[in-house]
């Protein structure tokens, strides 16, 4: 084990030494580490005084955890610079071939670069936090509780891991440092949003949610590392020299993958859709199982957690239901007047929902998409539990009100989500015969084949049934 990790450290050690000799990295890092904490301290003090002038209750103690979050984050931003040029920088300087020609394994090279990106900025981040805490102590302000302090320290590391893992993945796929810097906005923007969310959590003081956020960031970082290693190709790093986006190539690759050699829609179904379905066999099995387990789980959770007073009432007036619905619509940003349930509304709503799941999956290698899937499927179980709790004939209502269109809608959700899961799985799986771009285009094409060939027709039929048949069946059974 130690033998395998020695080369990782060897590579990291060399580059760390190099960084200590590079004033372009040292200088900003020193400023961010030792100038920013006093600045933050002064600004926080001024902010409190300002708030007091107008009767505000901003207390410096409450600003300390937030300041630690920010102070810890600034030096970590340097990690982005270091990591972004980790591979592509060596390529530009002409040192990459000598490095790639050594017996280092791909993952050793990758982790070595990862360590380089993380260690130095993280050390600076912790030094900065320590410096700030020293100043806080000097002012007789309360230090954050141990649990929160640990969270903030882990959070700084999580930020570094996330940014470095993303930046290195970009660095391995870029043809120049310039291109890598441009692509860095895909890291900077989400992380900026993340910091805002974390700031809210820090002020709110919800430890559990903060830990969940840290866990989610770590999972994303691990996935990004996995994606980076999976698509790390020495050949790619040596091969391309010029930054070009070939729309023609992108279209040709997509078209070939989506249509193949087929002539008719029937042939397309037989060759292409069937081929994609075969690839998604495992995600389909997994998600079918997850659908069943999710529904059962949601049923049990809803039954267990439903407030007793709601169950006791067991009935609501029409006005109460309408008010609740209006409140919900307002909260969800929907028009408060009654929604007309038409075929078009249901169909577009379902398509939108699947697109959102796909986009979430796209950003999180399938994870958020599958989370949305579990929530979607869980609604059935929860609904069943609610109906049962109110003493209504849940099975009859379910069979008459959900099943007629559900026969089509539920498989559509499962197929659509399987495509999302497949996308995530493909992106984190090594494929030496294809570049990351090719893998991405083929995965999108597979998802679209299932989407156009299976999901849309199923949703179309489901919406027709839901509007024209389900209400009649429901009426028949409930009268």
């Amino acid at each position, binding site marked *: 084990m130690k033998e395998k990790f020695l*080369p990782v450290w*060897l590579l990291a050690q*060399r580059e760390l*030494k*190099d960084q200590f*000799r*590079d004033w372009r990295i040292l200088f900003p890092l020193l400023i961010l580490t030792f100038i920013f904490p006093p600045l933050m301290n002064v600004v926080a003090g001024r902010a409190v005084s300002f708030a007091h002038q107008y009767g505000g209750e901003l207390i410096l103690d409450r600003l300390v955890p937030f300041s630690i979050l920010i102070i810890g984050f600034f030096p970590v931003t340097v990690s982005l610079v270091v990591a972004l040029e980790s591979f592509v920088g060596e390529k530009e*300087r*002409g*040192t*990459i*071939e*000598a*490095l*790639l*020609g*050594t*017996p*280092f*394994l791909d993952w050793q090279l990758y982790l070595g670069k990862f360590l380089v990106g993380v260690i130095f900025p993280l050390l600076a981040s912790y030094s900065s936090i320590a410096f700030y805490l020293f100043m806080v102590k000097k002012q007789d302000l309360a230090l954050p509780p141990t649990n929160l302090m640990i969270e903030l320290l882990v959070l700084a590391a999580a930020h570094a891991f996330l940014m470095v893992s993303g930046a290195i993945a970009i660095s391995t796929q870029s043809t120049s440092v310039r291109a890598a810097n441009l692509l860095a906005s895909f890291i900077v923007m989400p992380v900026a949003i993340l910091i805002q969310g974390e700031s809210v959590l820090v002020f709110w003081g919800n430890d559990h949610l903060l830990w969940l956020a840290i866990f989610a960031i770590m999972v994303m970082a691990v996935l990004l590392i996995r994606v980076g290693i999976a698509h790390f190709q*020495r*050949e790619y790093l*040596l*091969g391309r020299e010029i930054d070009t986006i070939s729309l023609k190539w992108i279209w040709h690759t997509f078209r070939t993958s989506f249509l193949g050699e087929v002539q008719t829609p029937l042939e397309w179904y037989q060759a292409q859709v069937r081929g994609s379905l075969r690839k998604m066999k495992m995600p389909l099995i997994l998600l079918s199982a997850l659908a069943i387990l999710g529904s059962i789980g949601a049923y049990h959770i809803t039954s267990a957690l439903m407030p007793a007073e709601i169950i006791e009432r067991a009935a609501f007036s029409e006005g109460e239901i309408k008010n609740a619905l209006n409140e919900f619509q307002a909260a969800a940003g929907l028009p408060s007047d009654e929604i007309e349930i038409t075929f078009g509304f249901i169909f577009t709503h379902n398509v939108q929902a699947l697109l959102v799941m796909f986009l979430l999956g796209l950003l999180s290698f399938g994870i958020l998409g599958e989370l949305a899937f579990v929530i979607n499927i869980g609604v059935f179980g929860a609904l069943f539990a609610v109906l049962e709790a109110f003493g209504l004939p849940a099975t009859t209502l379910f069979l008459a009100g959900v099943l007629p269109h559900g026969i089509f809608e539920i498989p559509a959700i499962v197929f659509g989500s399987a495509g999302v899961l497949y996308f995530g799985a493909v992106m984190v799986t090594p494929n*030496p015969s294809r570049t990351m771009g090719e893998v991405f285009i083929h995965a999108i094409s597979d998802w679209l084949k299932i989407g156009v060939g299976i999901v849309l027709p199923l949703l179309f039929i489901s919406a027709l049934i839901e509007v024209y048949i389900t209400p009649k069946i429901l009426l028949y059974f409930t009268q």
Partner: protein
Amino acid sequence: MIQTENLGKKFNDFWAVDNIQLDVKAGKILALLGQNGAGKTTTIRMLTGLLRPSRGWARVNGHDVVKEASQVRSSVGVLTEQHGLYLRMTAVEYLDFFGKIYRLDADLRKKRSDYLLEYFGLAEVAKERIGKYSKGMKQKLALARTLIHEPPVLLLDEPTSAMDPESARLVRDEIASLRSSKRAIVICTHNLAEAEMLADEIAIIYRGKIRLKGTLDALKDKVLGSAEYEVCFSAPYNVSKLKIPASMEILEKTTSTLRFRTENPAKDNAFLLSELSKEDAPILTLEKTSRTLEEVYLKAMTEVNREMQ
């Protein structure tokens, strides 16, 4: 040590290298010659396991370049087109870093590093940042890196480019001294004199394919025809009256020289000498005319170009 079979590399729709057959045994030096973009570097990169062959296979020091790429890279010393040096390090640190990569122990690292720095005349600047070195010094250090682990296979891409004549000579001598019964060397070069001086076998690559391969003499015979000889006379002499065997092809005839080609020099040259002696001709010298690799290369390229058209 180096074997390839039908080795090919395709980039998009373009075969950069196609159907390369090599067999470089231990103790031999192969020179790969060709224009820029002919496929020499691509071949070297495939032999290092840096590029995955699109077809065919290659084994280096007994290891498959695809399945055992890490072992292949342990066995080779590669000098790349770009020197690939870390400019903020010193030469000592640099060689020590690569020594560690190849898992040499501390004593051996120091010994090898000291020797190489001394040999290449870098000992005095060994503790200076590489960034301060001249182009030639950098190239020498890159070669030292290639040799630090005494690899059984050396792949050298333009080893003497950017070097002054003295340094280039030094490097050439070093490469020649590296020839051993346990080591195979492949050199890519544009320097035909260098190839002629070092190589046991020469392969000329054109548009990804090996068009000619063999020993220098074999290539000369193949491309330029049989060996040529020249008789020089110390005084004007009329060669017209000489009896010349039919197997000799006369290339040039003057009162001071006679230049001819023969496929059987042992027999024909002996006959010619006896005839000249009988005639009491004022012979000054009889020698094989020198034909350079450059002539071979240029003629081969002209022929290949003509074929391609």
